[in-house]
């Protein structure tokens, strides 16, 4: 009897401002409050507030059978505190139903798991403290930035008290195997939950696509698809950006109607239910081993890190950034860490840029080159101050 596990990634970066060569040495305010507030206003109103209200109602109306898991970054919480504290209250309200789990991750949504183990551990602990103080629960399942996973991460995460990690159900690793079971890493220390990218992307990418033969996607159709896994699957992992609701898919596409109906349609099906990620790993044993010696992610078709550190600019920027670690001073620590947020490197991605592919929602830059220039100038400034 498959259990449906919803996981929503909730994150916004502190975007940096236009920072020119002429600002180096003169301006240590790197972030664009105005722009960040503008984006957050929009996202809070179009997505966070209506979706959280909907989820709260759904949990109650299904008699606490609808369950969801959130991965909220520290940098988003900071921005909500500044400009939309009511959204934090809403998260608390939804969490008070007992049907909500929060995952652990890096506070700054960083790539530190690749570049600095020390930094990674500190950011995970920071985030753990934040979540436990806000929601009174200690994260047990880890969701790394962009769902990065590689085998060497396992010991560190075990040491930090995690019992499972989520990542992408990458085809070339799974082979003939299905993502719809619980797996474990080669050492057996962590359980692994894999994103069912087909079903997840049906909602997050294809939902409003009129070229898609399944358009329009209705809740009963989707529930039927899931029920087809009955007997050959135990967990259906639907992992996506929270902004899918109301932002990536606008309200006008009918995404909220879909969300409102889906829990009832799923619960109508024989033997289907909802679980949080922790419930899933407690309920189902690992059915196989999932291993990747190199980092995988949930991005693009390559499912690797090339969207963040694929080109020369990205590699240069991130190497220079982490090279500052040894000389870091307390006064600049928070700024340095906010610069580690993966989005900054994503904005410098040149893959498909010429095809007019925006590559990411809420990208404030005209081109990856401008993104790099701003970031690089800021690094020069920070370097001078250390």
């Amino acid at each position, binding site marked *: 009897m498959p259990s449906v596990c919803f996981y929503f990634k909730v994150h916004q970066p502190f975007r940096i401002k236009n920072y*020119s*060569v*002429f600002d180096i040495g003169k301006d240590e305010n790197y972030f664009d409050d105005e722009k960040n507030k503008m984006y957050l206003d929009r996202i809070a109103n179009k997505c966070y507030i209506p979706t959280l209200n909907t989820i709260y109602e759904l949990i109650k109306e299904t008699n606490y059978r609808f369950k969801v898991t959130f991965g909220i970054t520290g940098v988003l919480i900071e921005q909500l505190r500044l400009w939309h504290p009511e959204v934090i209250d809403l998260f608390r309200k939804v969490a008070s139903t007992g049907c909500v789990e929060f995952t652990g991750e890096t506070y700054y949504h960083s790539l530190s798991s690749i570049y600095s183990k020390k930094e990674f551990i500190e950011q995970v602990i920071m985030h753990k403290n934040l979540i436990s103080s806000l929601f009174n629960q200690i994260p047990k399942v880890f969701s790394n930035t962009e769902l990065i996973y590689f085998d060497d991460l396992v010991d560190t995460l075990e040491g930090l008290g995690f019992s499972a990690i989520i990542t992408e159900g990458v085809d070339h690793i799974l082979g003939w195997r299905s993502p719809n079971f619980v797996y474990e890493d080669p050492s057996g220390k962590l359980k692994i939950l894999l994103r069912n990218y087909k079903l997840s992307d049906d909602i997050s990418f294809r939902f409003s696509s009129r070229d898609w033969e399944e358009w329009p996607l209705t809740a009963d159709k989707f529930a039927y698809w899931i029920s087809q896994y009955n007997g050959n699957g135990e967990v259906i992992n639907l992992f996506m950006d929270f902004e899918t609701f109301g932002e990536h898919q606008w309200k006008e596409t009918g995404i909220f109607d879909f969300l409102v109906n889906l829990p009832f349609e799923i619960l109508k099906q024989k033997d289907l239910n909802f679980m949080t990620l922790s419930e899933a790993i407690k309920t189902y044993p690992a059915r196989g081993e999932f291993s990747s010696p190199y980092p995988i992610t949930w991005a693009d078709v390559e499912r690797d890190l090339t969207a963040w550190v694929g*080109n*020369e*600019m990205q*590699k*240069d920027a991130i190497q220079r950034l982490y090279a500052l670690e040894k000389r870091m001073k307390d006064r600049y620590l928070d700024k340095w860490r906010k610069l580690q947020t993966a989005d900054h490197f994503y904005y410098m991605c*040149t893959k498909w*840029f*010429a095809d*007019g592919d925006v590559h990411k929602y809420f990208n404030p830059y*005209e*081109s*990856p*080159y*401008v993104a*790099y*220039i701003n970031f*690089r*100038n800021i690094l020069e400034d920070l370097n001078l101050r250390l």
Partner: protein
Amino acid sequence: MKKVLMIGWEFPPFNSGGLGVVTYYLAKNLNNKINLILALPKKYPINSDLNIIFADEDVKILKGYQKIYGIFANGFLEEVLTYGMRLLKKIKELNLDFDIIHAHDWLGGFCGLYLKNNLNKPLIIHIHSTEIERTGNNPNPMIYKIEKEIMDNADKIISVSKLTKSIINNFYKIPEEKIIDIPNAIDLNYYEGADLEYFRRLKLNNYKIVIFVGRLVLQKGPDYFVRTLKYVSEHIKKIRYVIVGDGEMFPDLIKIADEDKVLDKIIFTGFLRDERLWAIYKYADLLVAPSVFDPFGLVPLEAVKFGVPVIISRTTGVGDYLKNCLKVDFWDVKNAANYIISVLKYRPLKNELVKNSKEELSKFKWEDRINKLIDIYNKI
């Protein structure tokens, strides 16, 4: 096979800008595929296996003759207005027949319209720039009127960019359906530039070379280029700006550079073509094209071909198609300086710009443009 009369104005090596270059490549590439007659206003000693007719055979080429395209000079307007009459006479003399007239800009367009009215043939007008663009929306009313009359009466209009298409649509009130944008293309063959001793030495001594290539006229924004140098030289000590081109703004540029105390960092080469121009690209670290308005802009593509990263203004038409470059508002001198310094200082930026822009060059093949043109000929 369609028989096309193409009405040109200038032609290399007797050209001052892109119009002549584009006419040359269009004619050359069309020649194998359709029956083409190219008409030019005056007889020049042109070496070509194209089928060329001249409206005027007995013109003496003045020494140092150089038509500054688009400038309203003595006798110039008359030449444009009488081109059609002279050409019609020639056509009758030679007893030429053709199916379609394809004329370039208002310079050839007025002639094209005259022929259309007299011979009743469909007319395609190929717009490389409009008076609105050339003058920064301060048009000579007569030229504007002529342009509008030509476009109103043409059967089809080709614009060299989306930018120019929108100008034709908005300022000349031509319905969008009548306009097709066919961006220019470039010769993708690589040519080795000459060895320039002085530039080689500059490079050996780690000087950065930033170039401007174009006529020194308001439209191309050479003054904005010079104004960046004051800021750039603060950060990059070993720098030389190289300005390739002639034009009426030369004295203004000297004045600006002198006021900004950077005159010693600028090299004016005058107008260059072929080996000597390619040589400049070879030594350049960066090309800046801060045009106030440029309907297309072949120069940035040339630079890309030679592996030079480019900064262009947002009001440069090629930016509709070339993505891997930096874009500035032409008036935002300080931001342009910021980008110039960044490209010169941050090697990964330069490398990525060069690599990715080169990959885009395949979008600018003459062959593809010719196929689109033939398609238009066949449908008209």
